[in-house]
């Protein structure tokens, strides 16, 4: 069986309207993949940074996959939430990125988006907060029903991931 180790961290996020943020993350992989060790989802700390241009999570990711096939290569998906000084949470963006397929150290930027509603809904969102969320979070990493959505771009999530592969060359895979 081939194995993949993902060893790195969610470094932080930048480019959002405000930077008191936290991130909920998860991993989704195809049927041939199995997680041997490591957490498959989690939530980072809430950072309220001194300098207002980026939030830093420094959240470690250490996952060990075993796989019988290369279809369904795992993806990391994120939800970035903003927490204000009253402790209320507001969704700031969804994003996903594939785990890199080549071994080595990778610095990855994941762009995020959030759904928008009608004009009246965005006016009410401006004054009251809130806003539409996805009913089914699978849509973050799948393309199935995306054509129904209208979205707006938000900031970027920064990752630093180290990938170690095992036995891929024995199966003739070049990556």
């Amino acid at each position, binding site marked *: 069986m081939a194995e993949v*180790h993902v*060893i*790195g*961290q969610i*470094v*932080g996020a930048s480019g959002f309207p405000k930077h008191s943020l*936290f991130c909920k993350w998860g991993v989704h992989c*195809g*049927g*041939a993949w199995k997680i*041997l*060790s*490591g*957490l498959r989802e*989690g*939530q*980072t*700390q*809430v*950072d*309220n*940074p*001194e*300098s207002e241009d980026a*939030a*830093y999570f*420094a*959240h*470690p*990711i*250490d996952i*060990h996959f075993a796989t*019988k*096939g*290369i*279809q*369904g290569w795992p993806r990391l998906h994120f939800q970035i939430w903003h*927490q204000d000084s009253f402790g209320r949470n507001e969704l700031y963006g969804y994003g996903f990125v594939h785990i890199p397929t*080549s*071994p*080595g*150290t990778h610095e990855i930027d994941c762009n995020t988006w959030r759904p928008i509603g009608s004009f009246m809904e965005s006016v009410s969102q401006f004054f009251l907060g809130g806003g539409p969320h996805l009913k089914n979070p699978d849509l973050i990493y799948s393309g199935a029903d995306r054509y129904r959505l209208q979205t707006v771009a938000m900031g970027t999530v920064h990752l630093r991931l*180290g*990938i*170690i*592969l*095992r*036995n*891929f*060359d*024995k*199966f*003739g*895979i*070049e*990556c």
Partner: protein
Amino acid sequence: MAVPSVFLVMVSGQIESAEFPEFDDIYCKYCFSYGLDWAMTSGLEESITQVTKKSQDQYKRFVWNFPIDATFKSTSPAGWPQLVVYAYGLDAFGTDVIRGYGVCHVPVTPGRHRLRIPMFVPESSSLLQKFTAWVLGRRPEYVNPRVVAQGEGREVTRVRTQGFLVVSLNVIMKDMKKLGYDVLPSDVQNPTIPDSVTKTTVGAS
């Protein structure tokens, strides 16, 4: 020839410098956090640097130039070691208070890596607690600094990033390829297909 059962990872580097715009008189401590499969074969598990003041020029940097040397052995990359650095400084009343925790994985590729890691402190839950902490010099701290190297339980913490630390690490590995692990893309460029593989189904879901 016997296949080795463990591989080694050696880190040699230094805690170079830091930027903490608002503070002065800072020293760092570091420790390594690693999983159950790992053991440290040489080097210091924890250490503490000198106290330094910031530079007088416009960059306002703290420079330690503090060496880090460690060698680890393991049977599996899971639980890869992380370097946890925590910086303390003197506040206005002369007590040691925490100025930031930072964590980074020892890089998984051999070579020289220079990393700039954010340093954050836990925040008090309320304004009154913030004031009491400032007056008494007892800021919120983590009981065990290695908690920043873990993923569980982080969702209940609120932190404030106050600065950055630059650390440079040189990594050497031994026997990773012999155990079948590839850490560089060039390692996978010469695939060989042993006979046993043609008898099993591979690549199809």
